[in-house]
């Protein structure tokens, strides 16, 4: 009878190495998937932080350009704007697309200007708009309320 019990114990699933092997495999798999998820999280957040930093930099840049910006200058990629936007591109490793528009609907046609390549439909884009005063192309006497929209994407 004792021999019979011994055989029975030897044959039990819980008495051998199999359970511990299963647990080790599960643990390692779980840990590796956590590392993968953490790495993905890090990359996403890093990209998000970079894009937000680029937007704040753009806001600061256009703050200095208040009342000095003309739609035609921005649209023609003047040297100043080319270098300014290039600096943001290089510093943050993002693409920048800028849209300038007047707040007055009457001026929209003559005021709208863009700079850079628009983001592709599939790109993840982060945009911010803020007020700016705009000099129209046809006058030195007037400055209009405008809005500038900066979009950054990778």
């Amino acid at each position, binding site marked *: 009878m004792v021999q019979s019990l011994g055989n029975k114990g030897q044959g039990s699933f*819980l*008495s051998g190495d199999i359970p511990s092997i299963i647990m*080790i495999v599960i*643990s390692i798999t779980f*840990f590796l998937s956590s590392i993968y998820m953490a790495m993905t999280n890090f990359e996403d957040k890093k990209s998000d932080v970079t894009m937000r930093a680029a937007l704040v930099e753009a806001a600061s840049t256009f*703050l200095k350009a208040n009342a000095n910006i003309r739609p035609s200058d921005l649209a023609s990629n003047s040297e100043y704007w080319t270098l300014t936007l290039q600096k943001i591109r290089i510093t943050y490793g993002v693409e920048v697309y800028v849209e300038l528009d007047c707040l007055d609907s009457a001026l929209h046609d003559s005021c709208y200007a863009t700079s850079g390549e628009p983001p592709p439909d599939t790109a993840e884009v982060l945009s*911010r*708009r803020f007020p700016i005063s705009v000099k129209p192309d046809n006058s030195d006497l007037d400055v209009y309320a405008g809005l500038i929209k900066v979009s950054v994407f990778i």
Partner: protein
Amino acid sequence: MKTVDKMKLMHTKGQAEIMDGLILMLITAVCSVVLLSISGNYGSLPVQIYEETYAQKLAQNTLLSLYHITDQDPNSQFYKKSVMVAVSNSLAKGDITLKTPADITPRSTISGLLEGYYAELGWHFMFAILPDGVMIDSSSIIASDPDITTLDKFKENVGSPYCASAALTYPKPTSGDCADADIGKDAGSMCYTIFELCVWQT
């Protein structure tokens, strides 16, 4: 060794391996939770700072824009001035309410501009004068939110606005005293007062 002892040893060995496995699982679970928690919170502080900086820049940009935007004098075909010059002229007359005639282009008055910015950006804006440089004068409040008409309502309804302030000079009133109407302070041949522009999201 007796058979019974052998059996006990084997049984104990099985339990020990299971315990090892369970401990390993526990350790990896704890490590994974810590790792995911760290990675989940990574960048949240900088993002919050950038969001606050953006809001601050929004207030500064708006404030600076007001200095430049042209206001056409309704009584003159040629005379143009900045919106803030119009504010300055109002203050020189002791008018702290800054009410402008209705026939002026809406986008060249403080209230019209703030309403326009709110309509486009979805942020609320408030312009007010701080005669002592600290406290907002309720009678000077101009806000894109029609509910914000007094300092108390501003405090009640607006949690943590982002504000930018600057000084504005204006001609001395006819009496020659800048403290008339409790608006400003003496700055030699001119008077000056502090005004503030706040932005917030509802």
